[in-house]
């Protein structure tokens, strides 16, 4: 018996961060009786600790609920929760490709924000039917009419029928479910065609191997089938298929239009890539579903264990995290100053922070991260191009013809009052102004091309503080452009410290060098002798500070009980000094 696609609705809930997507998802589970309300844990779909703490979704989820509509028919709803951050735009697009429709959540107090626009665009690009939903109408500051106008003006979406809801109180959730039934189309597909299923997420389960979340487009997939991934060519036996309610429930098969999970038993999550197409091993298709892309790291940083003994544990931790995170790439790196570590590539800054936090928290590692960097393209005089992930690999200046750096297309939404402040900030970050659109009377959209390296500094924080928190930022990868870039070295006692080198634009070199010297002066403990700190490009010193020689360093009290304690302090100090010695050759 196959599920009639007519009674399937696959949809996603999309929103700007904090607009209440997860709470709404919880209400849906509650209202459809999928999860008893007493068992509800807030934001049930976000299962990882860090996700829950930060209120953001990193991995996708798919939950099946049965909804008996007002028409008396029972529908299979597959609710797909997508990652909620620009770092994961590609993952979002694949999740959306598994849907026919989307509920676009807009906060009734905040209105349309950058990610609302970005997500709506993605949904439109994916040809999804969009149901606008104005959330948090229970709040005193809610202004649904203004928000309705913003949705119409800013997104060009009809919002007359926008659902008014509150995830908190549950008001309007029933309206939303009815709207899903009537407005979102049923999936189309050919039950008799060869299998085609889209992988929209995958993760590693230590007991069962890689588990993929899939959407069947054509045909069906059953336990015991032999299948092949079209892009990677991986072949595998289907160990189990099923759906989540949200507990995993095995089913004999998944058929046209259905969403569910697939247990592969594979050991490497890289064999089951998001966006890939699953087809039958025999008589399958050769043409993959559109939209597949390799995950590409954008931001790189060196991660070094503070305690050298933690190198192996760090490696193991990275291996473990990679099992579940195909976007995480890393290779060993050696620094004279920091010893052995890894150069790690991330999708973006949030991804980087989350990974670093997980390494420290879940694996108990103490890590030192070097300044985040981007992938530069260095063109040598002979025409050869070198991809540079670490400033340490920079060829000698005499060999370089020119350097290109990645630019992002950044979209900033702000109230008109802050246009000046944002212009100033973006210009100071070497932004190239593209366009400015008035989306409504209260919202201006500014489009810029900004070097990624500038964005990963503190652009977002500055943007928020310069606009009193009103600005929202969204970005996507643009292209590589030639820039006047140079490697800035930091020297302690005249010796360059490899781990502190960074690549910087010519116009910024002086300022960055000066600021870094000042910062280092504060954090480098005093030594027996003066330690000059220099920032230099080649042999030209741009900035200098001096850590004065130590004036006083003595444990003055040393009586009967103090001797043991002092000895321990002195030994600890010695260990700390050894590390400084490594860094500063002092």
């Amino acid at each position: 018996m196959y599920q009639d696609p007519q009674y399937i609705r696959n949809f996603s809930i999309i929103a700007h961060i904090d607009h209440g997507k997860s709470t709404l998802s919880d209400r849906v589970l509650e209202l459809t009786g999928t999860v008893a309300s007493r068992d509800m844990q807030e934001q049930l779909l976000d299962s990882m600790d860090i996700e829950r703490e930060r209120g953001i979704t990193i991995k996708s989820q798919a939950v099946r609920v049965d909804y008996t509509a007002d028409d008396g028919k029972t529908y299979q709803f597959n609710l797909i929760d997508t990652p909620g951050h620009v770092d994961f735009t590609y993952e979002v697009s694949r999740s959306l490709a598994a849907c026919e429709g989307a509920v676009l959540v807009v906060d009734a107090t905040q209105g349309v924000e950058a990610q609302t626009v970005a997500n709506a665009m993605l949904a439109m690009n994916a040809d999804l039917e969009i149901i606008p939903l104005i959330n948090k109408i229970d709040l005193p500051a809610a202004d649904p009419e203004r928000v309705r106008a913003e949705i119409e003006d800013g997104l060009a979406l009809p919002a007359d029928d926008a659902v008014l809801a509150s995830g908190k109180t549950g008001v309007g959730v029933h309206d939303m479910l009815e709207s899903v039934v009537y407005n979102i189309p049923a999936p189309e597909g050919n039950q008799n065609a060869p299998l085609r299923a889209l992988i929209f997420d995958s993760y590693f389960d230590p007991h069962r191997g890689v588990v993929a979340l899939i959407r069947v487009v054509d045909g069906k997939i059953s336990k015991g089938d032999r299948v092949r991934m079209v892009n990677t060519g991986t072949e595998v036996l289907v160990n189990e298929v099923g759906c989540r309610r949200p507990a995993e429930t095995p089913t004999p098969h998944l058929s046209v239009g259905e969403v569910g999970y697939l247990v592969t038993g594979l050991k490497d999550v890289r064999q089951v890539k998001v966006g890939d197409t699953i087809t039958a091993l025999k008589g399958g298709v050769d043409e993959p579903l559109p939209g597949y892309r390799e995950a590409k790291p954008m931001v790189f940083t060196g991660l070094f264990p503070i305690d050298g003994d933690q190198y192996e544990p760090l490696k193991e931790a990275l291996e473990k995290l990679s099992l579940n995170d195909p976007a995480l790439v890393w290779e060993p790196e050696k620094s004279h100053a920091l010893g052995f570590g890894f150069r790690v590539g991330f999708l973006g800054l949030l991804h980087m922070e989350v990974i670093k936090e997980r390494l420290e928290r879940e694996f108990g590692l103490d890590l030192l991260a070097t300044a985040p960097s981007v992938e530069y393209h260095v063109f040598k005089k002979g025409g050869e191009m070198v991809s540079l992930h670490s400033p340490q690999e920079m060829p000698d200046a005499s060999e370089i013809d020119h350097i290109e750096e990645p630019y992002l297309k950044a979209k900033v939404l702000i109230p008109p009052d802050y246009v000046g402040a944002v212009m100033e900030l973006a210009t100071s970050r070497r932004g190239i102004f593209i366009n400015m659109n008035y989306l409504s009377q209260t919202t201006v959209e500014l489009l810029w091309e900004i070097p990624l390296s500038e964005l990963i500094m503190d652009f977002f924080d500055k943007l928020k503080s310069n606009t009193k928190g009103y600005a929202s930022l969204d970005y996507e990868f643009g292209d590589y452009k030639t820039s006047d870039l140079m490697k800035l070295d930091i020297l302690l006692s005249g010796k360059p410290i490899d781990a502190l080198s960074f690549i910087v634009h010519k116009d910024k070199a002086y300022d960055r060098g000066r600021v870094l010297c000042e910062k280092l002066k504060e954090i480098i403990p005093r030594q027996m002798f003066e330690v000059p700190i220099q920032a230099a490009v080649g042999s030209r010193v741009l900035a200098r500070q001096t850590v004065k020689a130590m004036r006083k360093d003595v444990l003055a009290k040393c009586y009967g009980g103090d001797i043991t304690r002092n000895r321990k302090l002195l030994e600890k100090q010695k260990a700390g000094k050894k590390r400084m010695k490594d860094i500063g050759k002092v």
Partner: protein
Amino acid sequence: MQFEPYKALYLHIPFCVRKCAYCDFESCAVARDDARIDQYVDELVLEIRRASKAGLLGSLQTVYIGGGTPSHIGLARLSKLLYTLSLSMHLEPEIECTMEANPESLDARMVRDIWALGVNRLSIGVQSFDDEVLSILGRPHGAKAAREAVRMAHERFENVSVDLMCGIPGQSDESFAESVRVAVELGVTHVSVYPLTIEEGTPFAQRVESGVMPEPDDDVEARHMLLAAEILEAAGFHRYEVASYARPGFESRHNTAYWTGVPYLGLGRGATTMRQTADRRERIKDGEVLEVLDAAEMLAEDLMLAMRMSRGFSIEDAEDAALVFDQLPEVLGDLMADDLVELRDRRFRPTTRGWLCGNQLYARLLALA
């Protein structure tokens, strides 16, 4: 195992009228009339008697009653302790017997009676003669009481020491210098000078962490330590240890025991005992062995501790030690090159820089073992 006889006895009194904001010592604020103090004194009496019976007190040269605040427990209990002590060992005039006292709990009667019972050195926890600084420190006494305490002490005691603290945020150079001068004018025979250290878990640590109080400034501390040396040496004191200045003949023999590898017995809560044989040294606290040093570690420690004192160690000591540590000549060379150590009158001694940056010096000597 046959241990060398103890030459020094330390008795700990872990009670104070209140806990100062910088203090992480083994002590707690307990009211003077609290029965817990009586109980503690009784136990201490018992410990002394047992040690005496075990023959541990026969070779003592010095006794030190420290705290906490010994004067806080009052004359009756102190009398009981001192009486026990005099029954348990030969508390004769040539035995240096020090008691710590705080200005707020020292009175003329106490001065007379403890002197009569054998105490012959009084160490007064003054810390500063500046009311403002005393209040920053959270001391339970003012400058006037501090001066008065020193005057009272001199009614009986020739040998009076005061503790002074420096490098306290909010304490000016002049305030500190003035405190040193007042001590000199009051006629004390011994001064200890400590830069403030921020100890974990103290109110000061919290204040520093929350940014209410700046961290002690190394430059200021260095300046104060130099000021103290200058004023006290001009007044006829000599610095015999990093933090200790004395008029000739008034160096603390008890403290010197700590720095010269002499075994000491500590009685009372939190007191440390050091005992040793020719090739093994142990430190014990509250029945727990804190550390055990082998012969080489003992030697390195002796060299380190010697460098806390102006006498340092002799060329002959160095030659003997070099038989164990063949890298010693090189280390001494480095230390002299770094201006931490100098060779004067055939002894290796700390330089001014060696006083100020002692940890650099001590760490390198400890690292020999």
